[in-house]
């Protein structure tokens, strides 16, 4: 329908051109995954914060149920699938990524007709304890091996006991992969993949940092879209090459003062996962107030532990790299990271998504809010919603609250 309308060159200028390529790459990726068996390749399901690099070394195609559930949310198929899971006996308070995935696996539903069945599962609990329960369900359903990469939460520090435990698991992980794949692990290849992973993370951070420019060349909503690559293709040339292009485009936009929100006046920061089923609505809602969500805590989580990673010895350094990511740390450390982002991206306010589906992200938000308000006096809006389950979204109420919040921002900033 949009194609029928005459093109508006001003609007075209605002569009991010790399987006089409991104869609093509992701389509090709899912086709590869769905035809893996025909090509003699194995498929592993892995959590979004899991050590995927080793899978690339073994030529296994990693598939991300979380990314898939986000697509389910974005195509507004979450409510239906969640309801199906509830009919299967899964309580409606369970994470909606898990509910959608568990239901989808039984009917091959959703926007891409379901994910290819896994040969094995890799679950890293650095993002939550939920994934372990979710992957147990899928391991029973598919009858495949499950490897749990246990990364103890680092409330305040990184104890020696934790380092030793995760280091041992790195070796166990490789042994597990050798067994399920029936071949030796290639440590030279690991060096290459590790370098590509780190390179991808650096590029992704550079892309996110282009939003320091005013106006911001992209928004958190764009980051939510383009993050699929750092999640699913981390450690590949594809991700590195794509992000090089995207970075060039963003830098060019920044240099030419092309903002993604036409008259950017207010800069905001987003906390927590996206509300996938309301991306367009939220993006337009804020843009109508000349507000751009210039940064977020979610998409930057994939480069939140770069300081621990060493491309000379990726395997060893990933012990800290995977354990000390954003979320697997104390609430006060998360607050400190947000404080830095406030200054770095020069934001005027914060929008916190209190996400019923994600307890490790959401519980503690009230304390973070208080700490930030005490120190910066920034207006903070708390939206209660769910990342996938659109049934939990109250549009008119949230619209009113956004309008009221923007009024406060406008009064403060003038």
């Amino acid at each position, binding site marked *: 329908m949009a194609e029928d309308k005459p093109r508006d060159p001003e609007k075209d200028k605002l569009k991010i051109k790399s987006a089409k390529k991104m869609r093509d790459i992701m389509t090709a990726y899912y086709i590869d995954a769905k035809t893996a068996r025909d090509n003699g390749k194995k498929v592993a399901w892995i959590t979004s914060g899991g050590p995927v690099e080793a899978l690339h070394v073994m030529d296994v195609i990693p598939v991300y149920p979380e990314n898939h559930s986000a697509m389910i949310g974005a195509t507004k198929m979450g409510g239906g699938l969640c309801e199906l899971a509830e009919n299967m006996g899964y309580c409606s308070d369970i994470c909606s990524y898990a509910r959608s995935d568990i239901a989808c696996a039984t009917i091959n539903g959703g926007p891409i007709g379901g994910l290819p069945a896994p040969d094995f599962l890799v679950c890293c609990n650095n993002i939550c*304890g939920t994934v372990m329960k979710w992957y147990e369900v899928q391991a029973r359903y598919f009858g495949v091996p499950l490897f749990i990469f246990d990364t103890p939460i680092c409330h305040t520090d990184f104890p020696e006991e*934790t380092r030793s435990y995760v280091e041992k*698991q790195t070796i166990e992980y490789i042994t597990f992969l050798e067994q399920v794949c029936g071949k030796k692990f290639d440590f030279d290849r690991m060096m290459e993949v590790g370098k590509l992973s780190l390179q991808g993370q650096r590029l992704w951070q550079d892309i996110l940092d282009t939003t320091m420019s005013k106006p911001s060349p992209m928004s958190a909503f764009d980051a939510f879209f383009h993050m699929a690559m750092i999640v699913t293709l981390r450690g590949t040339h594809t991700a590195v090459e794509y992000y090089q292009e995207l970075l060039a485009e963003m830098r060019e936009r920044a240099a030419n003062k092309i903002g993604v929100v036409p008259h950017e006046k207010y800069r905001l920061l987003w906390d927590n996962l996206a509300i996938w089923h309301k991306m367009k609505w939220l993006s337009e809602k804020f843009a109508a107030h000349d507000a751009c969500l210039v940064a977020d805590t979610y998409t930057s989580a994939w480069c939140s532990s770069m300081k621990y990673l060493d491309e000379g010895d990726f395997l060893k350094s990933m012990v800290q790299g995977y354990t000390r990511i954003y979320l697997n740390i104390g609430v006060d450390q998360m607050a400190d990271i947000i404080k830095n982002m406030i200054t770095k991206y020069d934001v005027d306010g914060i929008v916190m998504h209190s996400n019923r589906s994600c*307890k490790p992200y959401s519980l503690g938000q009230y304390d973070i809010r208080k700490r930030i308000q005490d120190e910066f006096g920034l207006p903070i809006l708390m939206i209660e919603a769910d990342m996938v389950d659109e049934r939990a979204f109250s549009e008119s109420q949230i619209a009113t609250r956004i309008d009221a919040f923007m009024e406060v921002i406008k009064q403060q900033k003038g």
Partner: protein
Amino acid sequence: MEAIQAFQRVVDDPGGYLQTITARRKIIGYCCTYTPEEIIFAAGAHPVRLFGSKGTIQRADAHLQAYSCSLVRGVLEDALAGNLEALDGMVFPHTCDSIQRLSDIWRLNIASTWHNDVVLPVKLNTESAHEYMLDVLKKFRRELQAWIGAPLTDAALQESIATYNRLRGLLKRAYEIKSGDPGLLSGRAVNTMVKGAMIMDRNEAIQHLEVLVPALEAGTGNTARSTAKRVILAGSICNHPEIYDIVESAGAQVVWDELCTGSRFFEGQIDVDGDPLAAIARRYIGRMNCPAKHKDLRSRGETLLRMAQDHTAGGVIFLNFKFCEPHAFDYPYLKEMLQGQNIPSLLLEIDQELPAAGQLATRIEAFIETM
């Protein structure tokens, strides 16, 4: 029974009871059965299980969303309301996402207590996880010792292990007697006994049990054999003893449970030989697990089936906390495994307040009729 009354008094007024201890010993709170309380006890401190506020939640709402479980909200409410002033410290073993964040929130808001995270492994079925478990217990011992300011010796640990083996053995014996002759002791009394034993000084609890258990033993056989239907309760903690009353008025008896206020607290004796810390670690690894820990894919289901078989139970009632994910994830497969053995089950989602008594009774009665 006098012993049950003694337990009832501490369950009704834990704060008042703790006041009698506080002059003598440091009091350390916890809210999970993975807390290595044998180490706390060996250090000369008093471990006390917290079950959450029974009143309305107000203060905790400033820190926790309404979609947190009533245990997490209730415990924080008690702390913020000043109901836990007797506590000198609080220990948080890592279990679920909610307790993980409760630990952070506690650390940032309740400045008056010593705070310790015991970040246990999430999986219990690998060698490295066992080594890590032991490392974490060693670290806890070191930190506790430093805080208490007195050496925590192996001899003290061994003595503590003996105390816990005795306590747990007695609780288990009481359960066995009840299972053999369910009419002998009400479910409410059993619930009070276990909860009381988690609040009361452990030696004092043993003294009461040493009176109670022989009395129960003497009572068996004197009563007509119970014809009640036999039910197992499964879940985390049961804060609502009314549930036992309803089950009993519907003509059934709870003959065993898979609860943290029950068998998860007393199952598993600790080896008395060898390194005491390693022995403690082995119990937490080997004992029936909570769903927040991974043992294997069907360990809880197998435990429940074995329990049903051992105690000839005809049905299982799941008491799941509203918003508790680990338990909610397990329910469908547990139900299916039970169904496979023709054991019906009923799911009750429990929040801070029980649903209207009539409504709950109707559901439980209907379920028991189908058994």
